[in-house]
């Protein structure tokens, strides 16, 4: 069975970061389970955590008045969920719902944020990693907006 330490240490997001920092992240990480249909985070709530999805699928949703929520994208095994803890005002901008039973590792974003303020080298490394994730998702969103399969 994979240990929490090993999963975090081997995840590409943490690759190349200082061991002492990775150990710190491990020490305040926790394994969580979310039942299908339950919400992992809600728009407007304080964002102090981010998640590494280990199993299942997470739907990123936006709620709309007088209609059902709209699924913007899904995240699955190995992906990072949540970056609003990194940027002021530290509030979630979307909902994230477990589309099926989800296992995830919760990581302490607030602790990481504090460490990044104290150590700008670390802060730069963390920002680079999140910039990569943001770039991938922005590119995917742009393609999605093109509505490529529609009749032109």
């Amino acid at each position: 069975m994979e240990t929490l330490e090993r999963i975090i240490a081997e995840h590409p997001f943490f690759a190349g970061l200082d061991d002492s920092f990775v150990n710190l992240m491990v020490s305040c990480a926790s394994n969580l389970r979310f039942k299908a249909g339950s919400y992992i985070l809600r728009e407007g709530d304080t964002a102090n955590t981010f998640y590494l999805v280990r199993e299942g699928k997470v739907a990123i949703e936006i709620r709309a008045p007088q209609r059902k929520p709209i699924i913007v994208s899904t995240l699955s095994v190995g992906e990072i969920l949540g970056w609003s803890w990194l940027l002021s005002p530290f509030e979630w901008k979307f909902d994230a719902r477990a589309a099926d039973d989800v296992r995830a590792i919760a990581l302490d974003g607030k602790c990481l944020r504090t460490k990044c303020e104290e150590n700008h080298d670390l802060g730069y490394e963390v920002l680079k990693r999140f910039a990569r994730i943001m770039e991938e998702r922005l590119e995917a969103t742009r393609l999605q907006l093109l509505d490529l399969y529609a009749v032109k």
Partner: protein
Amino acid sequence: MIMATAITTDPMLPQPYSVREVAKETPDTFTLRLEPENAVNKSMFQPGQFSMLWVFGVGELPISISGDPALQDRLLYTVRSVGQATHALVNRGVGDGVGVRGPFGTGWPLEAARGRDVIVVAGGIGLAPLRPLIYQVLRNRKDYGRLVILYGGRSPRDLLYRKELAAWARHRETQVLVTVDYGGLNWRGHVGVVTTLFKYSRLQPARSVAMICGPEIMMRFVTRELETLGLSRDDIYLSMERNMKCAVGFCGHCQYGPHFICKDGPVFRYPQIRNLLEKYEL
């Protein structure tokens, strides 16, 4: 080199076929099963090739063959009703006549894929020209490595061959991942563009051949993703689409740089057309 199959009859002369079945795939897409009125006609085609279908009195259309190449007594075409001629075609009734020219063009490189993993990336109706290839790989399973099918559609109701996708996923050494751009709350699959599926696929780039068909913008981004993952450009094949008329390289309607899509394609090895894909004017 991708070889086109020689046509034995006059390539400009449509052969009489009859509609035997029209199956609704999505609200605007239908699969027609055609059988030759003349028993001499056999549907010898390579996966990836296309035919010109005459709807008499309306017009002629290039349509990829989407059926099983092992079933030579029939031809299947999956057609999206988007204009006058396609609308007339999908509204043919059982027993109605359709003229068929072809098959034309190059097919998917099944020989180059032998002994290797096959990555199929399809978007929208682009799954139709890839379906004969999937049939061929599944029928000759031991000749190929893993089969990875990545398919993106607009919404769940726009996905083609949903039952078959589920059935293909049950084959050994076969992974099928489907995503949609817009998923309702009842959709249990992925939501996002097809390129987001690569991170869930278990690829072995050094021993893989990729075959791609879909909107050209999608194919550009897929080829970039495949190169980033380590696939050699020489192992990437794309099926291209342009307006066609004669289908045999006479008229020039489908000219694409130095190529005619109808006879040099529609399936191209990526390096053949890579510089053209980057040209704004084309």
